[in-house]
């Protein structure tokens, strides 16, 4: 692997950049592997990387039906945080956050992880109560999170409108300083490059069409548009297509996919210093390094694989943005897009073995999978390599739905009096 550094960049510049080589090997499938990862997004590529790096497997393939990282990795708003309520969740996301903090060095690829802080805005008495519970729970778990008054929040994020005379005034905010954003594509490319360097085969334009099993029911490989590939371990990390892929092995999942839309403004000079989220009025905003305001909209209500939704959904989000940051009312939407989010009933993910021996699944990340990328990949690799979950992802099974052991982050923030 070519080492990336300012020095290598300068050296290549003298060589007119002709010396750069492909960052990963895009290859044709071999007949058989020790493990196959289905899905070449950030999670899947990272899983292959950690399998190779930490579990000694080298004969690994990542099969991707389209272009690498072209799914939700390419479509999210790149928010990274770990201030979840339940211990199980916050442990998982914190595991990821810690990996993020050293990921650029680890991969020798600048993933532009920027710990600019994430403010979560409280607009109601109930919000205040919920966010304070988060702060106390997170601190007990060793996760930074602090409570801020509206004035403190404004000092941290000057464009924020804290006027008491708006429909939902800001009553306070919780701030995770270690939270932030990263460059989404770079994460996938960095994992791909590092994994490829350790011998992982990255196979693009290769769609899985079937899952092969032996008489005993064990996985023996996959059928693909580029032919059959044998392996005793298949890890599915296919986000919005998890139901489709697992369905090939007769497994039904507790998932529903919904369109999730996002948008960016035209680029402007730095005007917004951190990430701001408001669950109550549905506004999620940060400014990218390019200068675009990156804004997450809500999900459309229905099942769809179209990667688009109705314009009323981002319009609703922009109403909220214009209330929260009225200075931005005159900015303009440059680009909007949609992704396919795979949502579980309790809005927590599944990183687990399945009922089929040798078949593993990492899915259900809904609207929040990007932030977990290195963590999920790391724990999924563990689960595949050892055929048992790591203690952190042990609660995130499919069976929790049967057993009633939900990890319900969504309901935890529910509003009712």
């Amino acid at each position, binding site marked *: 692997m070519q080492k990336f550094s300012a020095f290598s960049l300068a050296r290549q*510049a003298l060589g007119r950049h002709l010396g750069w080589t492909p960052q990963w090997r895009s290859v044709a499938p071999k007949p058989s592997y020790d493990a196959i990862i289905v899905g070449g997004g950030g999670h899947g590529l990272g899983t292959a990387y950690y399998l190779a790096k930490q579990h000694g497997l080298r004969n690994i393939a990542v099969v991707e039906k389209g272009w690498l990282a072209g799914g939700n990795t390419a479509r999210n708003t790149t928010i990274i945080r770990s201030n979840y309520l339940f211990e199980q969740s916050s442990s998982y996301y914190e595991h990821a956050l810690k990996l993020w903090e050293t990921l650029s060095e680890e991969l020798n690829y600048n993933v532009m992880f920027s710990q600019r802080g994430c403010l979560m805005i409280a607009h109601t008495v109930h919000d205040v109560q919920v966010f304070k519970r988060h702060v106390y729970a997170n601190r007990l778990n060793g996760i930074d999170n602090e409570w801020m008054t509206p004035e403190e929040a404004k000092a941290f994020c000057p464009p924020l409108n804290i006027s008491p005379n*708006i429909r939902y005034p800001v009553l306070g905010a919780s701030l995770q300083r270690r939270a932030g954003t990263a460059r989404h594509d770079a994460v996938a490319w960095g994992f791909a490059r590092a994994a490829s360097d350790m011998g992982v085969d990255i196979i693009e334009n290769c769609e899985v069409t079937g899952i092969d099993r032996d008489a005993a029911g064990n996985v023996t490989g996959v059928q693909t548009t580029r032919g059959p590939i044998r392996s005793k371990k298949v890890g599915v990390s296919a986000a919005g297509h998890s139901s489709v892929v697992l369905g090939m092995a007769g497994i039904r999942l507790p998932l529903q996919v919904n369109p999730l839309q996002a948008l960016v403004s035209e680029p402007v000079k730095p005007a917004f210093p951190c990430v701001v989220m408001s669950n109550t009025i549905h506004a999620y905003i940060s400014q990218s390094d390019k200068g675009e305001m990156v804004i997450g909209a809500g999900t459309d209500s229905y099942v769809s694989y179209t990667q688009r939704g109705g314009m009323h959904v981002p319009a609703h989000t922009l109403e909220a943005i214009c209330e929260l940051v009225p200075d931005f009312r005159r900015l303009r939407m440059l680009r909007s897009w949609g992704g396919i989010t795979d949502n579980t009933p309790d809005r927590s993910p599944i990183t687990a073995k399945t009922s089929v021996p040798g078949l593993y699944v990492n899915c259900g990340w809904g609207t929040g999978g990007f932030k977990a990328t290195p963590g999920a990949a790391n724990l999924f690799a563990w689960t595949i390599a050892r055929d048992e979950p790591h203690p952190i992802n042990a609660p995130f099974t499919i069976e929790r739905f049967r057993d009633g052991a939900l990890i319900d982050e969504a309901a935890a923030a529910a509003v009712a009096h």
Partner: protein
Amino acid sequence: MSKTFRLSGYGRVDRSRPVTFLFDGKPVKGYAGDTVASALLADGRHLMGRSFKYHRPRGPVSAGSDEPNALIGVGEGARHTPNLRATQVEVHEGLVAISQNRLPSLRFDVGIVNTLASPFLPAGFYYKTFMWPHGFWDKVYEPLIRRASGLGKAPTAPDPDEYGLHYAHCDVLVAGAGPAGLAAALAAGKTGVRVILCDENPEFGGALLSDSHSLIDGVAAAQWVARTVAELEKLPNVQLLTRCSAFNYGPHNMVALNQRLTDHLASAPVGMPRERIWQVRAKEVVLAAGSLERPLVFEGNDRPGILLASAARTYLQRYGVLCGRKAVVMTADDAAYRVAIEMAEAGLKIVAVADLRANPDSAVVAEARARGIKVLPSTTIQRAHGHYRVGAVELAPVSADGAVGKGRTVSCDLVLMSGGFTPSLHLHCQARGALTYDDKLGVYLPGDSVEHVRSAGSCRGVYALDAVLRDGAEAGLNAAGGEGDLPVWTVTRQDQPGEGGFAGALPRRGPGHLALAFVDFQNDVTAKDVKLAVREGFQSIEHVKRYTTTGMATDQGKSSNVNALAIVSKTLQRAPQKVGLTTYRPPYTPVTFGAFASHARGDQFDPLRLAPADGWARAHGAVFEDVGLWRRARYFPRAGEDMLAAVTRECRMVRKTAGIFDASTLGKIEVVGPDAAEFMNRFYINGWTKLGVGKCRYGLVCRDNGFVYDDGVVGRVAKDRFHVTTTTGGAAGVLNMMEDYLQTEWADLDVWLTSITEEWGVIALQGPKAREILAPLVDGLDISAEAMPHMFLKEGTIGGIPMRLFRVSFTGELGYEINVPSGRMREVWDRVWAAGQPHGLTPYGTESMHVLRAEKGYLIVGQETDGTATPGDVGCGWAISKIKPDFIGKKALALPALNAPDRLQMVGVLTDDPHYVLEEGMQLVAAPQMQAPASADGHITSSYFSPALNRSIAIAMVKGGRSRMGATLYAPRLDAAAVRVTLVDPVFYDPEGARVNG
């Protein structure tokens, strides 16, 4: 030679209306009808902006919405808008425009050092560096990068302008009013169906407005436009929208248009919206989006003074502006010859037309030659020279095998380039239309779509004017249903489109590794960047886009996508259709956030639902809180009181005498029908069969997963009629869930549901004096303890007003909830209030309600529960009917996990220090000092100072809590030692219930 580049006898600007505006603080003269770009060009000024990465000086390359370079900020203060295209901004008196992304000035920009450093800043350089030392990225490098990037400046004050958002419906929507669009609209309009025609420009006509050559039905193209528009205006079923871009093609033919109403006006009428979004549901859509001329990619192609041939023609024919004095035309198709001929006629010296093709030989080429224009076949531009303005180009011969020979440098101040025309497929792609690659034309064309959409004219590769008009008319007529006369026009003079066109980087001599030949002008993506990306393995076109940022500028690839594709295709030696095109995403052109938000601002951001006694509460100084959409009185402070003092007083008065509370926001549903009781049995965890008429019961709703969903008191008004209450926030959800089960699972039941939340206003009258206050008011109804015990319900009147009187209590005191018609509740409230005065009746708000119920250990769904609590967890296991065969949640409630002894259970919590009030959300742990990460034993859900106990109290959810009464736990604080607490029964006050039954 005159200093101005404005020609008399040309253009459509209004010479009788001169206009002066400011550009970078200096006055510029123009005419009504000019854009900022045309006015500056008339002054001979091409330099209008700086590029994103290298801060190179840039002038306009286009004359429309595809402009990547000439971006300006317009307006001042709160009305400043960054990143507008100078090629679209219409001038008016007093307009203030500034250049962007330069420091200190447009002409002298220190950012230009980035150009010098360009060898070290290839595509994706930032992925490869800035990693050392650890932590420097977001603290040191990133802030520097951020400051250098971005374009204009965001406004720093709230936008004072108004916006609008409307729905519209039509049979045929025509997007684009060039020849195809006008023809389509007329053909459709004449059939009588409803037609909307929109175009992003201030005038209809599209390319015809710049076409002085073609004749239609014997008249000049522009005259035909005027005639056709006049004809359309006469059709009442046709709506015409100028300055209106179709920007979003949504599912099921919902197309969003953005109409700009005021920016072009020197003074807009007060209240006139600046922009309006139309959400048009069209039965059929005709896309007549036209095509965009492609720039050519050669070294130095970004120098000001190098622009698209069609743009120069537009500046001449629409604005009367000659873009220079001495031009080289670089082309790969025939269209540029007409431009050369017209420009030469207008006085421009054409040094030469360099044609990439070996044998250009069409009629227009011959005409050019005949007029003395030098045509150089098999010629390319090796390089353009100049800095603020192109000064010369090296023209070099290209041999048949693509080798470029030594050329000669010719001086010029203008280069007109034409790589051929790319159909605009944006809306078609947004409509999820397929694309087909046309080998002959070398472009993608629209294929099938699931939407009811068709393309017409040059956006589907039909270029000759007569064919475009025919295509448009046919599309319009077919979209309208196909019945009617097809309008026919005769094009009596036109240029044939001819063969040719080029995409990708022009051939050059030498490898050009240092040459800056721009593909994406704004983002400074060069041909070698694209090749580098491919070399580094980014072979999918989406990867190239993301790695190099080509196509991600504010023109969203309009000027760059096809050239990037061709370079990738050539580098990979893979056919363009195998490389593919990046997805076009909405909007077609940028749309103001405010237009989406429209009227949803301030008070109108969301409905503000006011309870019937809201006015009274305001008059009595209430402090309010938002609960869902409702505004509720939280407490009623008297002079000098803070919340604690007010709430303490309110609570004491309720326990001592009586309090009055507006409980109208509680959800209410009337469940009526012969099977009402059966329905209730199936829906609630409780049993209802035995509940007598005139009685109430506390009901709990679970989901089928066994977790508590909602609760509320239910009264049986008649055998077949229940008056159900829900939480305030749960009202809509419970009704929807009831309808869901009723319509989906239990369609056999004869029972119907009606929301009566707003039919009945509810006055909660609570406290030992409640009966005394109420009795005289209720028109002879016997409400004595014997006649109306706790949890009874009576119908009657109060002062002649119909009433459903519930004897219920959420305070633990003797209490009533007086349901009266909401429209008359205020009357009743005033009467009760007056009657209560001698007794010391006090208004109380939601905060006191919370304290009073917490003293009694009553749960609040959503506060004690969080979606994972069972009835048993919150001490309501008693409510679960043991005899019903089924109800929602029954199966799940039997799961072992939902009955585990270590589940979080609702308990009371007392601090050692009776004055210390815990904070809600605090965690409870086993030891005073816990090393993070530690697990919690539970958490505080409610915590108050209890006036009744004169000490702090709290409710918590604690693992196995009910079996740990008396246990000691600790609540860690954020900045002080943990607080020691003891677990107790959650009923702190009057555990025997003597008061409520009083």
